[in-house]
């Protein structure tokens, strides 16, 4: 008899992260754990430190104190990543725990700021992904959509033009872009399409962990809705773990399983998304939830 996985393994363990630019500017003493396959939303007003926290988590800025630990082979073997079958993952996870591959154990824990810069950059490029708020920050605007999608693959050492192109077209289809526009420059795309392209470019190497900074910021509502729908489908079908920073509670409710509310650099409340949005406990969260406009 198979047992369902109740406790998902921890993928990212954040311990006491502090990065302050001044008193209450930045983030202070943040602790949390992100489990495999989980979407964690970080919400809060502008200047609450959520973007600083994301930059520290994503390896772009060293913290003043604290550790970011990435548990690489946490029960979920490499092969099981691409096709996510729950029972299958559980069974293979069980055998691995029994077998105990020594090399996997040696690599099990990576302290993001203790490993060398080369390892960190390789990790960011190949196993993690970062989706910027402004697609211009995440895309190479001078080269075609296909080259943008293929870049991470070429960095991995793929040297077959035909395959790169086929992968590019497949991913354009996945993010609901017209594959016929693979040779067009990103600047000829609309804002929403650029954001889709950025997502395809990030997900092409099948990262396990993706950081998103306001992925729907600056888009109009109907485009936002379609993008959110697409993101939700991708997250589920690829089994991604996501840290999502947003100030939009509607986005958080749609995508996030769990929420962290930040204010003045500190976490004031954490919990399941519905629980926080429907029954906020902290006075700041109550204020935040009550200030949402409903048409």
């Amino acid at each position, binding site marked *: 008899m198979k047992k369902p996985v109740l406790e998902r393994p921890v993928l990212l363990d954040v311990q006491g992260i502090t990065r302050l630019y001044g008193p209450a500017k930045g983030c202070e003493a943040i602790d949390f754990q992100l489990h495999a396959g989980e979407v964690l939303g970080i919400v809060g007003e502008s200047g609450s430190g959520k973007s600083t926290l994301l930059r520290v988590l994503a390896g772009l800025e060293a913290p003043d104190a604290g550790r970011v630990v990435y548990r690489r082979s946490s029960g979920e073997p490499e092969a099981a990543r691409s096709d996510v079958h729950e029972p299958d993952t559980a069974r293979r996870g069980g055998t691995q725990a029994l077998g105990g591959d020594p090399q996997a154990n040696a690599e099990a824990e990576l302290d993001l700021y203790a490993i060398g*810069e*080369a390892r960190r950059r390789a990790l960011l*490029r190949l196993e993690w992904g970062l989706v910027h708020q402004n697609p211009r920050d995440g895309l*190479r605007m001078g080269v075609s959509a*296909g080259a943008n999608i*293929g870049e991470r693959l*070429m960095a991995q050492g793929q*040297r*077959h*033009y035909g395959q790169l192109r086929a992968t590019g077209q497949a991913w354009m289809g996945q993010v609901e872009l017209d594959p016929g526009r693979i040779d067009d420059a990103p600047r000829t795309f609309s804002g929403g399409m650029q954001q889709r392209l950025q997502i395809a470019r990030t997900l092409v190497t099948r990262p396990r962990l993706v950081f998103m900074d306001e992925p729907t910021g600056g888009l109009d509502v109907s485009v936002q809705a379609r993008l959110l729908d697409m993101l939700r489908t991708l997250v589920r079908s690829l089994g991604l773990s996501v840290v999502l920073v947003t100030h939009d509670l509607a986005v958080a409710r749609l995508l996030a399983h769990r929420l962290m509310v930040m204010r003045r650099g500190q976490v004031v409340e954490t919990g399941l998304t519905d629980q926080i949005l429907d029954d906020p406990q902290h006075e700041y969260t109550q204020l935040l939830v009550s200030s949402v406009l409903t048409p």
Partner: protein
Amino acid sequence: MNGYNFAYLDEQTKRMIRRALLKAVAIPGYQVPFGGREMPMPYGWGTGGVQVTASILGADDILKVIDQGADDTTNAVSIRHFFQRVAGVETTTATTAADVIQTRHRIPETPLRAGQILVFQVPIPEPLRFIEPSEQETRLMHALEEYGVMHVKLYEDIARYGHIATTYAYPVKVDERYVMDPSPIPKFDNPKLDGNPALMLFGAGREKRLYAIPPYTRVESLDFEDHPFEIQRWEHACALCGSDHSYLDEVITDDQGGRMFVCSDTDYCQSRRGEVA
């Protein structure tokens, strides 16, 4: 010539450049910064190459200078005169007779031999520059061997033109480590870089960088598995010497659209005509 040290540069400067050259030879393809001096010519005319040549030239060396393969073009003539005046060295146009060859845009057709030194004039030494404007970032990319973006450019070529349309300054990987810009030589000359018995030195005067390919070093041109590296071919043979295997220049001969294809390497063309005649 009175008032100048041998070969124009003072001995301390030559020492500094030689030291940088030793480092460049020790790390093939790595760009070594050096304290470039003002030379009596504008940047872009070969100040980097001239400084390298001045530092390595000995009193009994024989010098050849070519520009686009030719010994009689402005840049070649003026640099040759410069060294005749400030170093009093013997000069030649024969590739086989030369000890030091300073070149712009070509590698001679006549195979080089061990003991010869080829000095390249380089305008932009950084092959990653077109895609990464930050010097700090490109140095980090070299250090960590992050060369994926080089293929982004080649991918873009194929997507746009159906083939790799880069025809000069074609990026190479030296000794399976550093990606290097071989200066604006046509990609026709890239295969000559691989395992060449001569020492090849590259000097960029404006950017103040030196790099080198030691003799018999492996040099690969970057490509895709399904779009392998290829060199240019011509349907014509040289109109003067009849060569069908050298790099040809197209020369317009009149206002009626008349044209001819001739070897860009003038010494090679002349010596072939001498043999045939």
